[in-house]
């Protein structure tokens, strides 16, 4: 057999997870091809190699269909970041993340970062209808009840809001509020056994996007890429198998992390 050609080895992996039809493929298209096009429900999975500065980042688009659920763990293995995607017009899609998808991330890196992304914001939010990537700071989420304690961490599944989904003009009723996503983010941290104070805050890691208009899409991916840089550096270090810990490097990366997290 001839030597099989290997593709460019990615430095780090980012995985898109979420129920079918929430728009994972569309988000990736929007980011990589800068357009919104017709999709078919993803079969198996697909990935895209993104050049980010000197690094190669592989972004895996997984299939949300139940049938392919079993492959999720494998896709997540060694992931540096996981994008948990739901559909803001569909309460169930957020619930599914917690019920079905969160456990798939067990195989991800121990320092994996998690983003909770509510897609299709254009359907509920007039400002997401502007067809540009919003660079404004995420809205103030002071109401986010970060200190709300959930007694049963794993079964703390959000309950649907009382008011039924109604159509106001062309705007769909938003079924998932940003606070719900933030609360879910909090539960992810607890599920991972992470201390909320030393982890990235919910305001930074919860996004509302629209693959259709491009709203917040670049911001999402770019924020994540910046945050996974330390992971890349660590991986490169490991590959060099240096027996001593390079304090400079550690300090460098940690300061980088804090820097990226403030803009």
């Amino acid at each position, binding site marked *: *057999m001839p030597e*099989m*050609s290997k*593709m460019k080895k990615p430095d780090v992996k980012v995985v898109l997870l979420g129920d079918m039809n929430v728009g994972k493929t569309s988000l990736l298209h929007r980011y990589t091809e800068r357009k919104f096009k017709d999709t078919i429900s993803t079969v*198996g*999975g697909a990935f895209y190699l993104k050049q980010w500065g000197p690094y190669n980042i592989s972004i895996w688009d997984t299939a949300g269909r139940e*049938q392919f659920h079993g492959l999720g763990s*494998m896709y997540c293995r060694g992931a540096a970041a996981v994008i948990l995607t739901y559909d803001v017009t569909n309460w169930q899609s957020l619930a599914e993340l917690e019920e079905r998808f969160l456990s798939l991330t067990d195989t991800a890196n121990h320092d994996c970062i998690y983003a909770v992304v509510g897609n299709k914001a254009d359907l509920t939010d007039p400002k997401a209808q502007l067809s540009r990537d919003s660079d404004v700071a995420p809205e103030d989420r002071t109401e986010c009840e970060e200190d709300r304690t959930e007694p049963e961490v794993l079964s703390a599944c959000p309950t649907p809001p009382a008011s039924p989904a109604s159509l106001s003009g062309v705007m769909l009723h938003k079924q998932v509020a940003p606070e719900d996503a933030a609360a879910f983010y909090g539960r992810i941290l607890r599920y991972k056994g992470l201390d909320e104070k030393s982890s990235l805050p919910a305001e930074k890691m919860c996004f509302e996007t629209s693959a259709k208009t491009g709203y917040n899409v670049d911001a999402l991916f770019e924020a994540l890429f910046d945050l996974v840089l330390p992971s890349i550096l660590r991986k490169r270090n490991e590959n060099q198998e240096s027996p001593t810990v390079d304090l400079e490097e550690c300090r460098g990366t940690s300061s980088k992390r804090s820097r990226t997290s403030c803009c």
Partner: protein
Amino acid sequence: MSVKAFELVPAVERDLLMGDKARINIECIECCGKHLYLGTNDCFIHHFLLDEVTSSKGKLSYSAQKLLHKYLGLKKPVAELRAASALERLIVLCDGIVFLVDMVTLETVPSAAGGGAKIRGVTAFCINENPVNGDPFCVEMGVLSSKRRTVQIYMVYEDRVQLVKEVSTPEQPCAVSLDGYFLCLALATQYMILNYNTGASQDLFPYNSEDRRPIVKRIGREEFLLAAPGGLGMFANAEGVSQRAPVNWSESVIGAAVCFPYVVALDESFITIHSMLDQQLKQTLSFRDGHILQDFEGKVILASTKAVYVLVPLPLEKQIQDLLASHRVEEALILTEGAQRNIPKDKFQILHKRILQQAGFIQFGQLQFLEAKEHFRKGQLDVRELISLYPLLLPASSSFTRCHPPLHEFADLNHLAQGDQEKVLRCKRFLISYLGEVRSTEVANGCREDVDTALLKLYAEQDHDSLLDLLASENACLLADSVPWLEKYHKYFALGLLYHYNGQDSAALQVWIRVVDGELQDSTRSDLYEYIVDFLCSCANLDLIWKYADWALQKDPTNGVHIFTKRPGSKDQPELNSDDVITYLEKHNQALLLYLEHLVLERRIQKEKFHTHLAVLYLERVLSLISESPKDEEKLTRARERLQALLRESNLYRVQYLLGKTESCEQLLLERATLHGKLEEHDKALHILVHKLRDFPSAEAFCTWASSSRDSAYRQQLFHLLLGVYLDGNQTAAGGGNGDLEMAAVDLLNRHGEVFDAVRVLRMLPEGWSLQLLRPFLGRAVSASMHACRTSQIALGLSHSENLQLLHDRLKERKKPIFVSEKKGCHLCHNTFSEPDVVCLPGGVPVHTHCVAQRVRDSPTKRQLTNSSNHT
């Protein structure tokens, strides 16, 4: 749409294998070099020699020659066959037993003395193609047994097998593959990776092996291909990570293999071929009763129950060309680039370039110019390939021939556009922008002439603004080709520029002149005449100027003369000799005048010849206007003003000569006065002004002018002269005069009183004049005299006080007084002083004045030492 990546070629046909025995089925195959082994359901092994035959047309076929067949004596189907060629053994699985047979004789190898050559209770086994143990004379084998939930690792030698390791698994394994220490296993409900050395395991993903037959296929170093739920072909490496996106098979895949860059899979009725580069299904071949698909050293072999086939990959280039032929540019490029590491570097580069160029032409044909351009650029296309598509654009002299085989299917642009003029136009616009971009880059190296000439032709044809820019800057347009083209499109101005660029200024001028004269039509420049004048003006070739200035001057003398007057005086331009120009301009009166004005008035050349010539021309003009009837007074006035101005201001022209010329004309008295003035014949001048013209203001002005650069005495004299003329005239005309000379005299005095010597004037004036009349003059004279008197008194006083001040200062300087008395003696003569006048030597020593004088006379060098002092 599909690619033709593979061809199915029969290898062993049904007849050769079983003749007419209908119930014999192929169960397994092994291929090792040219040796093909088949295991059948009737417990036979068949051995064939498989030869590749290439027909004269390059078509590949196989000829199989049966060498041997052997009954294994177990009455059960032969389930698995594996060659261990270094040992010359076949490893056979039949009836749950693994044993060895000789590759040549197919005889079962008897057990060696020390150990068995048989393993019982086996359901499946695999060979490690990448063993950690490097011993070439043994083969590592992974074995699954029917009863235990374990995997056993055996070493297979020539005549024995040896268990080296046994690892247990969480469930019953049903398929296995081995690479290094890594076992990739299909268990009942999932796949997993198991390191038999460390015991570490990694779950891959769930899979129900009872529902669907699992596939565990090693495809390369530490990488496996697995059948996944939903009919997927999943890739997994030894770390349990998927590094490639899965391919989408049907649910019922039986076997799979990788033949880079393709994944080949077999189901009940089809062979499907997916690309690993983009996960797309590329080819489907129908294949009935498919049973086995396996790859052996890169060769993919398939078997139905009755016959064997080889899946022969088409040469990569052929596949790429097929893709291009169906305009699948992206796929063709992916395939090309994906094959980079399988092809030697230099060969790849050539191939890649060519594919990029072809891709570019396909996109060009689809009018996707942006993409086309990018591919042309990356593929370093010889631009002439593109230019040659456009009829007649390449110069006739170009040595270019299109590349063979051709890069595209188009004969030319018309063929491409199929008569659609809009398309043609868009293609032309594209070429214009493309050539414009590349002409100054290395792309145009070696074919600049072709590129620039093509561009010129397009610009001319499309009436493009940049035509002139192209020709006005550095370019390599070929004259022979461009001239007829520019003529065809009536781009005569551009044609001139081209001639000029090629050093044929005369040809350029001839074309332009014909345009201005209306013989040729080209509206590029409405100011072409001025352009020609400018051109001649800065023309370095004097012959051209002499040749074409005539035309320009006839057309428009005023502008035409700019050829001579606006000539920039730069160093690299030969100077025009003014005399030559004047001679040349002889027949162009007006231009000559303008030229002389330029020399005399603008450049202020101080040459008598030019000044006289100009004055004469002015004069002649005035004379001719005078002789006209009716007279154009306005013109005449202007002409005379000019003449007068020149006569007044220039000091170089020949005055007598001009005076002679004016004598005949009684109307030019003023001019004559000026001329007399130039000769300092002031009395004559004033006579004319006062008596003939009776123009007193002019007479006054004359005085002012004629004395303007002289001292005040001269001026005074001149004014006295005028006064004299007035007064004398008054007396001689006493009877008939109406007193206007008198009035003129009074006015003169009253206006210019300061010039006159009042005393002399008073003596000259007739007795009878009233004081009242001269009051302003006298008033000013008296006050002037008073003023002078007082001013001098003040000056005197000031000088006096200054003198005193100085004396005072001096005294202070000395500090003490110098005493002189009758008792003191002079240091020089030693006599006593009798007078207070003494001279002090430095140091305040008083001596006699005459002694000092004496001494100074004796020694002239010391003259300076003495200081006169007047002290007592």
